[in-house]
């Protein structure tokens, strides 16, 4: 793909003359600012944090979890040992390696400000970064990209057909997913760009796609086809590979958003084996593939793995768990100062549970996102409270999690 298209894209987005300060700046300086990579992994459906990082040493753990409880380290199907009486699910071997290499920090009781139990509303709050449902129509990462000063401009890509809410609101965000069909001819795309000159939706969307496709084909990804389209947890890996290659390409974006579906385990979720174990294995393989794809860029990468809310501590009547509140978040990558827990852990004592059923929310997820934006990307605190998280009054970044 040729450069004039990109320039036209910028012109289209900015509505013509005013484009010079914004997106065009991004294209010329993004190489430098874009070296510090950020990958946001959203586990949609409410991931059971107690299955991912199990507090097996908690006195109440085994009684509450019933058949879902994982065995202690060393036993058959036992967890992989951490500190503080916690262990990782036996299928999270890559994460355990990162822990040993001090590249994984675990936040065991995270939640967005949302306190109800609807997936859709929960994801809305997680992605908008607002204090309540429908509090904003754009996403916190989108706003962060828009707020960056010209010299710090960065671009982001979502590995999906649609642009997720978290990236909406920014002209520097695009989306990309592997394709089966023969790619569209450049000539046709050029003609469509003309046809879309006055179209506020189709113009920017096509322009952005053309640019990402150019990066993808330059890194040999346009032939990867079917791999990324497999269903279920095996599909996570293909998507993560794609993210790694896009991020590490010359002139590639600085941020990627991955969405992995299917964490809503109401029935028969299993323990060391079973459907949730398969998903965790898929997640682990995907994160390993992401690291491989990033190559040397891994050392300057932060990956945040989050979910909209947690699940009930106790097993429900059908061998699963219902919608809860606090869940586990992971921060990993070469730029993470890890091998430790961060944030509070309220424990599983009856009085410590939220509404008597859920892990109590101890760490605001927005503080995790602030940590990445401030300490990894260098966004000013003022920008954060004015623009990115205007509703997050007392919420602050967590110190000591990013290697500067």
């Amino acid at each position, binding site marked *: 793909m040729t450069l004039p298209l990109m320039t036209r894209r910028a012109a289209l987005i900015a509505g013509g003359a005013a484009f010079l300060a914004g997106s065009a700046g991004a294209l010329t300086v993004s190489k430098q600012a874009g070296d510090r990579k950020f990958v946001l992994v959203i586990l949609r459906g409410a991931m059971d944090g107690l299955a991912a990082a199990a507090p097996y040493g908690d006195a109440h753990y085994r009684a509450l979890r019933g*058949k879902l409880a994982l065995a202690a380290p060393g036993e058959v199907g036992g967890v992989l040992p951490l500190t503080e009486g916690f262990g990782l699910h036996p299928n999270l071997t890559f994460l355990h390696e990162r822990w040993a290499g001090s590249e994984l920090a675990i936040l065991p009781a995270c939640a967005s400000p949302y306190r109800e139990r609807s997936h859709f509303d929960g994801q809305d709050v997680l992605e908008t970064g607002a204090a309540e449902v429908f509090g904003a129509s754009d996403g916190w990462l989108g706003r962060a990209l828009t707020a960056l000063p010209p010299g710090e401009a960065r671009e982001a890509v979502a590995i999906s057909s649609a642009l997720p809410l978290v990236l909406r609101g920014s002209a520097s965000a695009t989306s990309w997913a592997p394709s089966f069909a023969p790619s569209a001819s450049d000539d046709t795309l050029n003609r469509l760009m003309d046809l879309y000159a006055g179209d506020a939706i189709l113009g920017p969307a096509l322009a952005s796609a053309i640019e990402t496709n150019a990066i993808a084909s330059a890194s040999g990804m346009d032939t990867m086809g079917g791999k990324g389209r497999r269903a279920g947890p095996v599909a996570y890996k293909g998507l993560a590979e794609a993210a790694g290659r896009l991020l590490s390409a010359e002139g590639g974006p600085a941020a990627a958003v991955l969405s992995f579906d299917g964490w809503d385990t109401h029935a028969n979720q299993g323990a060391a084996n079973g459907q949730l174990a398969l998903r965790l294995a898929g997640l682990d393989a995907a994160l390993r593939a992401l690291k491989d794809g990033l190559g040397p860029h891994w050392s300057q990468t932060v990956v945040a793995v989050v979910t909209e809310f947690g699940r009930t501590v106790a097993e429900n009547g059908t061998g699963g768990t219902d919608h809860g509140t606090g869940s586990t978040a992971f921060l990993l990558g070469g730029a993470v100062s890890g091998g430790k827990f961060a944030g509070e852990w309220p424990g599983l004592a009856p009085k410590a549970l939220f509404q008597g059923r859920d892990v109590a929310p101890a760490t605001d997820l927005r503080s995790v996102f602030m940590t990445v934006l401030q300490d990894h990307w260098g966004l000013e605190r003022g920008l954060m409270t004015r623009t990115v998280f205007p509703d997050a009054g007392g919420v602050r970044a967590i110190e000591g999690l990013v290697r500067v």
Partner: protein
Amino acid sequence: MPVTLAAAIAVNRFGLGARPGELDVASKDPKDWLSRQITNKSAFELPVPGLLTTRVAAEALSEYLQDLKVKTEGKAGKLSPEDQEEAILKPLKQLRDITINEIEARTQHALTTQTSFAERLVLFWSNHFTVSANKAVTIPFAGVFEREVIRVGMTGTFADLLVASTRHPGMLLYLDQAQSMGPNSKAGKRRDKGLNENLAREILELQTLGAQGGYTQADVTEFAKALTGWSLAGPRTKRLVPDADPGDFIFVDRFHEPGARTVMGKRYTGTDEGQGEAILRDLANHPSTAQRIAIKLARHFISDDPPAAAVEALAKSFRTSGGRLPALHETLIALEAAWQPEARKFKSPNEFFLSALRLAGLPKIERKGIVAAYGLLGQVPYQAPSPEGWPDDAASWAGPDAVIKRVEWSQALSDRLGSKIRPEDMMRAALGPALSARTVQSIARAESASQGLTLALMSPEFQRR
């Protein structure tokens, strides 16, 4: 008779897109063209022979589960790749064929139907009551659920539709209701099993009141308890309800939580399925439900952010008619805002796919590749990602990658149709006065007829309705 803009709106915005000649028919009286479709039971039917009934689908599921058990029991981790193929993947593929048959049948019907407004209403309501085939146990039921619950219910009330949906095996399995037991029920006390609140929660949040509709966690739990015992007949329930056929709705007394329940401040006595049904009917007729349905309908037919007056008119129609769907649909047709000249709705992938094939006047869809085509565009029928169903706004469907996939698919379709097509004539027949001069010019300047059609299908006015 000249083709009017109103006819183009009726056929393209309310319907699934014009087939050749259809605008001429609708131009006589566009509103009447729509009205005649909504009270006619047969307009909602899927006249394709050979699809499974609920009972046969239930038998197929039993066979599959039985077969899987025989071939895999006690062999965890010991199956060779070939054995796995034979024991797990092949039977699952056979099960998936049921869904592909349904997709083929529905698509084939959508291509040629002359009552495409009725068909769009089926798709709308089927999405409201989502049963996704993304779980093995729901694969056989997603299609038959739409045919035996949604299509059949289109001339009745919302309450009847909600009750029928909640009783169907597809919904009972999709939202984990079938195995839910009251903690104090006979079976619950004896076994290490109990309550599952998934169906109760999604009915409150997605199908009736809405997340802001005024219910609490306590309402969810109480409603879930009232629904315990709602299940379907299968091999394992023979002992409990001997005279039920596979797939029949059954009320299993041994699973039911005893006692009265309080939901949304109202107390429900009753000891059988009547308790849950009474709650369902009250939820169906709650003002929050009227409001939620009104917003969804207005958003689907008018714009992502519909005018409040239109929403209120629909909500009022819902309330005053007792949730009678034909009355609600008639109100929709009468809304002035639904006839605004500017097309504001960005087509979903499914809408784009069907309208393009209808524009091309294709009489028949090929089975081969149909799922891949839907998949490329991002919306495989009966595979909605969650109980919320497919999204209904431009922000969800007009992502950069989604747009380029539409270009790729349009190009493939155009190439297949060959060089003898006349894209401008096709577009004029489909859009009438809604075709823009700019698009006409772009088609005229294309280097080939095939490129012209690609540009036409991707034009701003064809991407919207």
